[in-house]
């Protein structure tokens, strides 16, 4: 294993530890937008990068229960849903065990299942997942913008609205990107099956 490969292999845990450093943690939790759209996605990325640590045998067993990546993506969706709730993001700041739960469950139950399942998912499953994700970005963004009161006790209303606008922008960007790729780009419909190694 070259040094580069070693670094790449350990990128997940390194990022994990970095995010857990108190100054980094406080900085990324200082606003709702940062926590929701930077910290949590980065924690999910940690999980994605933890994929090489799964033993091949475990992956083999998982795959038998994860045809087309469906059960894994479902798991990731639920984990994402829970960490999208204003309540959980709010409590993570006040309650240590919630913060701990976030730092473990987002990588393990969101990022890792995505990494295991996405390559196995076919066009239709990916399509449903992406359409639902896009719709959710729009819904949450709208919700944050129209909520009459602050949804998080720890964050300002202006911050909440910034997060709302950012979510709408993400939804719009995802729609345009998907539309562009499907209309004019190259989509490898069968790629998933070929790459579905054990």
């Amino acid at each position, binding site marked *: 294993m070259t040094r580069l490969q070693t670094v790449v292999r350990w990128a997940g845990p390194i990022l994990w530890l970095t995010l857990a450093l108190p100054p980094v943690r406080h900085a990324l939790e200082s606003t709702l937008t940062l926590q929701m759209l930077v910290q949590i996605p980065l924690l999910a990325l940690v999980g994605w990068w933890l994929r090489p640590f799964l033993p091949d045998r475990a992956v083999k067993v998982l*795959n*038998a*229960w*994860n*045809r*087309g990546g*469906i*059960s894994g993506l*479902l*798991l990731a*969706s*639920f984990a994402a*849903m*829970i960490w999208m*709730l*204003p*309540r*959980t993001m*709010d*409590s993570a700041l*006040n309650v240590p065990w919630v913060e701990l739960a976030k730092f473990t469950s987002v990588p393990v139950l969101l990022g890792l299942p995505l990494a295991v399942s996405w390559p196995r998912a076919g066009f239709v499953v990916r399509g449903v997942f992406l359409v639902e994700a896009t719709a959710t970005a729009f819904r949450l963004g709208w919700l944050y913008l129209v909520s009459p*009161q*602050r*949804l*998080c*006790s*720890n*964050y*300002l*209303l202006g911050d909440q609205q910034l997060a709302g606008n950012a979510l709408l922008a993400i939804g719009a960007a995802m729609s345009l990107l998907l539309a562009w790729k499907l209309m004019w780009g190259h989509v490898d419909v069968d790629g998933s099956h070929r790459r579905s190694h054990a």
Partner: protein
Amino acid sequence: MSVLRTLLASLLVLAAGVTALSASTDGFRAFTSETARRVAVREHPRDLPPVLLQTAQGRTVDLASLRGRWLLVDFIYTRCLTYCSVQGNEFARLQDRLAGPIADGKVLLLSISFDPTHDGPVQLADYQSRSKDRGAGWIAARPTDTAGLEALMRGFGVTAISDGLGGYVHNAAINVVDPRGRLVAIADWDSPQEAEQVVLRGLAR
């Protein structure tokens, strides 16, 4: 075979996911921590910490010594130009609406400042008079030390954050404490009728 296994796994994930979602929202009722606080208090009344308070008159009172009557508690800071000032007016109006029970010594209104370094007795008294204090049954006070402040904030579940303009933003509400010294209900700060109802129902029992 893997179809059936996946179906089974998906159903399990679905069940676990719904359970987890339900657990983290108190059965799909509380999606924000503020609602969660209210649900929790309603279902499991919470004992208040014994904290020393200094009133606008300069007297020192133990929160625990106020037991034996219904308390309506809100949290304020007197520099507030936005809704804390309205909160004061709402309390003055509550003095009228609950005048009877107040006169009987069964109800007391209590405004606590979470900004004790700035809010001394003078500021608190000024706040009360600005809010058209009716003169009976309303105490404005501040915790006497930082530990007391923290205990109060924790006990009532109040979060105050800087608004970036030198002031605070906080989850304002009217906290209802029963004669046994337990926090039993939390009402919106702008709907004193709701708090009033809880008190009147309690008094009628």
